[in-house]
């Protein structure tokens, strides 16, 4: 099974948001692999490996990232986790929007012919939550968004995806090739069942695996192809232009109440909320 994982590098979300001249000030920012995309890499590994003994039974994981030169660092992180090779489409963040990303990915997918495209449900900087669905639409492939669980059929020709929707968990079956976007809980101890890892096996800890020293060394030798937007016939002319960014207005200061009866009185009479 060949899995393509598009990843985006984003500013570390734990940093304080700074605005300068109506734009996000990223001077000196540190960068990470978008958390949801990192989970997609983890999911791809869990789909291909035997989690109990760490062996892989064939298959290939290809990372694709569209971003500036120094995004190579985040791409190497994915390779160090265990992905096999990567394609780095070098572009400035200002040149690309969801539609441009989708057009590039479409071309790459037509050439690479993966069985599955796995990616995060959204990037934690733009929070747009579009690319997976748009890509599936353009490819005319089935989609399963917001995956909390994935169960791979024995013949590897279909997946049953547990999706967190309003009011419960929906189970949707999709044949491959398909686009699957992952949500937080995909990295739960038993969220991914591939029929190879014993069902009794629990992945330990939370989140994606950290690259091992061996993985980091191996990643340096893994193929990382550099391409550019023009190679895919995509013009750097985004359909969506960010005009300005501002901090949200602060909430008016609240009050500390001394006891429960005061709270209830104020909720009833002042806030008229009860």
């Amino acid at each position, binding site marked *: 099974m060949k899995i393509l994982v598009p990843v985006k590098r984003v500013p570390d979300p734990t940093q304080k948001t700074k605005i300068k001249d109506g734009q996000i000030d990223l001077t000196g920012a540190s960068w990470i692999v978008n958390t949801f995309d990192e989970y997609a890499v983890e999911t791809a590994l869990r789909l291909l490996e035997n989690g109990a003994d760490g062996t892989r039974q064939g298959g290939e994981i290809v990372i694709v990232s569209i971003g500036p030169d120094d995004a190579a660092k985040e791409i190497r992180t994915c390779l160090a986790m265990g992905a096999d090779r990567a394609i780095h489409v070098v572009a400035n963040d200002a040149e690309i929007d969801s539609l441009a990303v989708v057009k590039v990915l479409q071309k790459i997918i037509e050439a690479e012919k993966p069985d599955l495209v796995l990616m995060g449900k959204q990037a934690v900087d733009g929070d747009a*939550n579009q690319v997976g669905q748009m890509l599936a*639409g353009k490819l005319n492939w089935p989609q399963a968004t917001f995956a909390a669980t994935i169960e791979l059929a024995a013949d590897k020709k279909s997946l049953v995806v547990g999706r967190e929707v309003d009011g419960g968990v929906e189970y949707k079956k*999709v044949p491959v090739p398909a686009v699957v976007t992952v949500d937080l809980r995909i990295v739960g101890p038993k969220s991914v069942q591939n029929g190879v890892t014993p069902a009794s096996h629990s992945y330990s800890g939370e989140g994606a695996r950290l690259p091992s020293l061996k993985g980091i060394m191996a990643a340096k030798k893994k193929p990382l192809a550099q391409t550019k937007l023009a190679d895919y016939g995509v013009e750097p002319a985004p359909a969506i232009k960010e005009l300005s960014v501002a901090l949200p207005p602060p909430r008016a200061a609240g009050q500390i109440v001394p006891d429960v009866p005061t709270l209830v009185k104020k909720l009833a009479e002042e806030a008229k909320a009860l």
Partner: protein
Amino acid sequence: MGNVLAFCEFTGSTLRSSALANLAFARTAAQAHGGEVIVLLVGEGAQAASADAAKYAPKVIVVEDGALAHYLAETYAPIVARLAKENDATVVTATATAVGKDLIPRVAALLDAGQASDIARLESKDTFVRPILAGNAYSTVKVTTPIIAVTVRQSEFEPAAETGSTGTVTTAPAGTIDALGASFERLDAQKSDRPDLSDAKVVVSGGRGMKSGENFKVLEELADLLGAAMGASRAATDAGMVPADWQVGQTGKIVAPNLYFAVAISGAIQHLAGMKGSKTIVAINKNKDEPIFQVADYGLVMEWEKAVPELISEIKKLKASR
């Protein structure tokens, strides 16, 4: 000049209350585009909800077919895209619910439309304000494609009121329905008589400080007293205390009820992003330095073990006195 095609979800014979935010946006967008609001109802039972929808817009289009019984992006998106073109829509919109977020980008791709997701405000016909970075900043974006796709953040829009007149209802054929091999298997519904978290007027949420799922019972008692939905912080859902779909936050549900109780929740940015649009926020926490108190309208520095039972009895007294 262009119309606004508003995809609306329904339950039984009425629109979901989340759809009213979409309609509120659709009206301002229709004004800016010099067109009218067209409500689109797709799925089994759509006809039954059309009378309710007609109270909110001059035109309602119904697409009903047995093969559309369960929502699937694969079957719904081509219908929405086709009707957008047939009805000269320059804006296609839905509320950013689980369905809206899954569907609209796929529709956008079929229409070559740029999309503004989860918008908080319309600035002009093609310019929108939307939260980014987990709500830590607001971005103003201009969409330059001929058709614009939008999802609407429910908590940022006052629900649309009825227009006072009745719109026309027409039906449209579903056309060829091809699920591309995808199928709905089952829904493990959260069994509850409480309102849906996204639609509730009051939400009672608990956090890590509740320590166990068993301890949430007292919060559920408070919720039932107020007709509230239950919520939780990510710390509580990740610890398995309560179901994952109770999670309020950037990565869970975004809510904006009239009244929000945050009990034993510290107030991580992740959580605040999901609830700071609430009208009145009450924080109950034993530690006065927790960040939740910075967004709370009313803070009570007290252990939940003592505060919540007392709150229940005080609210019962208040109700009895009315």
